[in-house]
């Protein structure tokens, strides 16, 4: 306990953990968020500058408005903090060790170009220190099983939702005699569907971060209202645009559908950035939140809720990572992905963002990139892509098997080393 009251220890841990969190957040922005926005740039729906601007804003909003659930899972859902009731400093050191282990692994992976997930790194690291500090009983096995299951199921869910949406779009729009007429009807519906999913998941059970409590009926009412306004907006937008005879509305079916889905893909790009912020901010902020709460109260009861400023700073750091480290990634992806048309990009992004957001709502830390990969494969399965390399599935699975043991062992070693030092 005396460690916690020592000002030197307090500031040393707080500063070092915030710096490592910042590093992890920058890396998330430079890799995962860049990947998430890559499909929009690749299809030509967004320019690089617009993609950067929108992803900064919506990633931040996602982190602040819906990032609390997964953050809570990382800070107290994988290991039981109550087991450290008499030794809170060990929890603080453990979380710091986890952050450092994840940071080192992410740094190495970035250097060697290994396709690993930040989420898996941080979860593996937390489990590693938990096992050494208390033993296997420290792990919330049920919670961990849910997380691991979500890693397997989330890409599959992304594939089902993305592929399903593409199937509907192909059947109801692309295969119609007059595709542009069908697109005119379905575009506002798809727009309102996106708004409904976002607003429902954001307002479900209210917003803890701003102390807003809502009943289920209120959530339904608000989300349906938002969706209806979205539908009207979409409907009016198309009709106003249609009056302009020189616009793309007077062009052929192909150009019409392409343009319309270009607009829809801007919406899904924002949706992806929002969903990304809601899930991945936890990887950087989760352990820091546990450290902060323990240091502030001197107790492991996690009485201090995840602070809005933590999520906000996490969101900002991820956005900064995108600008500083991710620009190159986005440029490369934008040039390489010629297979992603606006229709396919919309479907893949919708599938990925919906899955990520639902997982965020359930407090499940998942790999956003893996979900996006699953979603793109789902669209490909519906014969949507010219050429997809299915060996990527092997790559995803191998990333689990490499990351988890490595970060577990590394976190264990760092924790052991910290204990000798302190």
């Amino acid at each position, binding site marked *: 306990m005396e460690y916690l009251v020592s000002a030197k220890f307090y500031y040393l841990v707080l500063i070092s953990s915030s710096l490592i969190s910042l590093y992890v957040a920058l890396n998330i922005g430079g890799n995962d968020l860049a990947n998430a926005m890559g499909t929009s740039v690749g299809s030509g729906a967004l320019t690089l500058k617009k993609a950067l601007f929108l992803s900064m804003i919506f990633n931040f909003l996602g982190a602040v408005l819906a990032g609390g659930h997964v953050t809570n899972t990382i800070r107290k859902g994988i290991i039981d903090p109550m087991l450290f009731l008499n030794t809170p400093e060990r929890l603080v050191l453990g979380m710091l060790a986890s952050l450092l282990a994840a940071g080192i692994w992410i740094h190495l992976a970035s250097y060697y170009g290994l396709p690993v997930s930040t989420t898996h790194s941080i979860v593996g690291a937390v489990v590693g220190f938990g096992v050494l500090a208390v033993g296997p009983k420290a792990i919330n096995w049920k919670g961990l099983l849910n997380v691991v299951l979500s890693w397997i199921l989330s890409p599959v869910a992304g594939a089902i939702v993305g592929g399903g949406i593409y199937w509907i779009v192909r059947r109801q729009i*692309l295969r119609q005699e007059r595709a542009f007429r069908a697109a005119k009807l379905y575009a506002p519906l798809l727009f309102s569907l996106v708004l409904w999913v976002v607003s429902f998941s954001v307002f479900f059970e209210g917003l803890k971060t701003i102390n807003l409590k809502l009943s289920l009926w209120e959530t339904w009412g608000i989300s349906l209202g938002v969706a209806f306004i979205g539908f009207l907006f979409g409907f009016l937008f198309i009709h106003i645009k249609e009056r302009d005879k020189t616009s793309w509305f007077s062009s052929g079916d192909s150009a019409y559908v392409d343009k319309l889905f270009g607009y829809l893909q801007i919406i899904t790009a924002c949706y992806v950035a929002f969903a990304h912020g809601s899930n991945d901010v936890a990887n950087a902020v989760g352990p820091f939140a546990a450290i902060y709460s323990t240091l502030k109260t001197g107790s492991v009861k996690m009485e201090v809720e995840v602070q809005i400023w933590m999520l906000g700073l996490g969101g900002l750091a991820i956005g900064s990572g995108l600008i500083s480290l991710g620009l190159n990634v986005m440029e490369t992806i934008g040039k390489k992905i010629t297979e992603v048309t606006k229709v396919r990009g919309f479907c893949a992004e919708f599938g990925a963002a919906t899955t990520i957001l639902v997982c965020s709502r359930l407090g499940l830390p998942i790999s956003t990139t893996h979900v996006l*990969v699953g979603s793109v494969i789902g669209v490909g399965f519906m014969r*949507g892509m*010219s050429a*997809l390399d299915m060996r990527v599935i092997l790559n995803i699975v191998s990333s689990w098997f490499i990351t988890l043991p490595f970060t577990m062992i590394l976190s264990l070693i760092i924790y052991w080393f910290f204990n000798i030092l302190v």
Partner: protein
Amino acid sequence: MRTKFMFLFFKSPFENLKRHAEVVVSCSEMFEEAVKAYIKGDFDRFETLTDKVAELESKADGIKRNIRGHMPKGVLMPVDKYQFFMYLREQDKVLDAIEESLFWLSYRRWRIEEEFVEELEFMVKLTKKAIDYLSPMMDLALEYFKTGLREPRTKLKSVIRDIRQVEHEVDLLEREFIKKVFQTSTDPIYVFYATRLIETISSITDHAQNASDMMRAMIAE
């Protein structure tokens, strides 16, 4: 870059398939011109054009090998891979048959009998028409695979029907032509030379039709 998202995407083989089709189609004009030069007795011009066709055939083979050699097992495509390769094979055979026809002509410098000139020219004209259809067929197929829209698919089906029709016309002409050769010539070498030439030229449209049949299978819903 840590998470290589773009490793999911494989270079589309359709781009190269289009390049291959362009090479095949670029030979149709030369084929027609070469046969006309042969009929006129301008053998130098004929040899030059035949050499050009042989050169382009070699180029097309290179594209074909590139497509086949860069198609890993783990690639997922919007069409069946077997059908894709069958299509490529037939498209390539169109050019092989053009080359074979010109090579066959080049083996001996005959004077084409007056009564056969009209049939031969008409047959070559129809063959050129069938080969030229490969270009819009490929453009429409690419648009369809890219957008998934119904309109290019409908147009594509119409082009496939047109190729089938031309092939049927060439088949009828081939039969009549061979009959005429047998009825009017008594020189066995000439009969062999002419019938083999007619059959080889006719095989060009056969392969064009086979390619279009594969295309039809590829766009089947």
